[in-house]
């Protein structure tokens, strides 16, 4: 009797703990929808394309920030993905080499590294010499944040391919490059693509690395790679610090857009990438 009671109490406490853990997630989803949706309905299409309204004067739009987020994510991927994937391949192929071993450790440290320090670093090497915030600096900072995720996922995915396939490929007289990029990558593609998408989703929502690099822009869409550029998280951060009611509303709307972009990247990760059947 007592044992059954204990078990019930145990189960109940686990259920409560689980509920408390996921509660914030649902609360965020709910409050962003509840506060953001009315703004979107009111602002209509102009909210997505227009420029920021003046203080206390309507909604305008967050067009420059949306364009900025897409551009920054794209540029960051352009810079970061090739390097990161190759790094992952290297540490999977040469796990016992000194470089392979240290790369793995460094990547794991980089993953947990405070992103604001990445921003500071890029400010020092790009923003100060160039004398201006720029899209390029923002993209570089995001690329640095993105790379360890992609590299670690790539490495992991390649290592999960059973050794028999690698042997099989080599036994056909294929060169190592062909074995890795045609066979192993093909079989590991789910993991690699997951890593890429997680990296992209991660940087699309990043604020800290952009603070000292991208600069932000809410009224100019795009002025050049060497000029400041906007980003949705950056805009939200800047808007909520303002005393104007309409800016707070715009921030809610922008949050909803950011969340939708994030979900749009994440849902395919879980659903559509076909697993390789062994």
């Amino acid at each position, binding site marked *: 009797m007592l044992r059954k009671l204990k078990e019930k109490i145990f189960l109940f406490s686990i259920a409560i703990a689980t509920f408390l853990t996921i509660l914030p997630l649902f609360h965020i989803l709910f409050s962003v929808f509840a506060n953001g949706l009315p703004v979107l309905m009111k602002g209509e299409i102009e909210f997505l394309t227009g420029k920021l309204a003046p203080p206390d004067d309507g909604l305008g739009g967050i067009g420059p920030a949306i364009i900025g987020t897409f551009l920054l994510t794209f540029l960051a991927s352009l810079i970061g993905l090739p390097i990161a994937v190759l790094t992952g391949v290297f540490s999977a192929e040469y796990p016992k080499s000194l470089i392979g071993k240290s790369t793995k450790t460094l990547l794991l440290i980089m993953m947990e590294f405070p992103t604001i320090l990445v921003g500071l670093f890029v400010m020092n090497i790009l923003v100060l010499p160039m004398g201006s915030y720029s899209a390029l600096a923002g993209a570089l900072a995001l690329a640095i944040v993105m790379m360890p995720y992609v590299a670690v996922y790539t490495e992991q995915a390649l290592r999960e391919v059973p050794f028999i396939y690698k*042997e099989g490929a080599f*036994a056909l007289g294929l060169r190592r490059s062909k074995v890795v990029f045609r066979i192993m990558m093909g079989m590991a593609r789910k993991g690699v693509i997951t890593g890429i998408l997680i990296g992209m989703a991660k940087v699309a929502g990043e604020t800290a690395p952009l603070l000292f690099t991208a600069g932000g822009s809410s009224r100019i869409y795009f002025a050049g790679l060497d000029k400041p550029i906007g980003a949705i998280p950056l805009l939200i951060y800047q808007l909520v610090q303002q005393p104007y009611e309409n800016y707070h509303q715009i921030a809610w709307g922008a949050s909803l857009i950011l969340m939708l972009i994030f979900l749009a990247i994440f849902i395919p990760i879980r659903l559509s990438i076909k697993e390789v*059947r062994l």
Partner: protein
Amino acid sequence: MNAIETVNLRIWYGDNEVIRGVNLVIPEKVCFAIMGPSGCGKSTLLRSFNRLLELNEIARIEGDVKLFGKSVYDMDPVEVRRRVGMVFQIPNPFPHMSIYDNVALGVKYNKLVKSKKELDEVVGWALKKSALWDEVKDRLKDKASQLSGGQMQRLCIARALALKPDVLLMDEPTANLDPVSASKVEELIHELKKDLTIVIVTHSPAQASRVSDYVSFLYMGKLIEVGRTEEVFENPKSELTEKYLTGRMG
């Protein structure tokens, strides 16, 4: 000329010596079986013939392996593996590729054909040689993972044959197959040895006696006995071999 010859071959994994001075001569166009209990070094020995052992970082090799008189260590490993095909214990066609691509892959990347038409011919030829053609000719674009275990193994044989190798290494090719599929593979061996040399590793004396012309018995990394299959089975010279053949040691 002999297809494969090993000279004082010794192989270590780290400090552990697994092949202890093996001198083996494998004639051309026969089926040569290497039998022995598990862990005796059969697979290791086989993998030294096509230099696949080098994928294992802790493996160290001493002595020599000659392919038609020429040391494989003087050759490009890619060239060695093109001429010495291999079929593995676990059927390992590339599951993300089509049946066609699995066979075409090695031919294409080794640049053995000049046109798509020629490639089609080679793929068809290899699938017919491996007795798989009738079962897959209408579904060449299907993923290899949709085949049954026995079909997968014959696909692996086709994949190896497509490179037109001189030697085919088979590492317990029927160990993971059902009896019907296994006997199909054994029939194939009889057919294939007309054109190329087959070296098959097996832990089953029964299988060795069914498929091979020559047989060798490997025990604890040493070559105990080698000879024509009938002779070894009827009249083993070594007591160890006799024990193994009569099932008093496995």
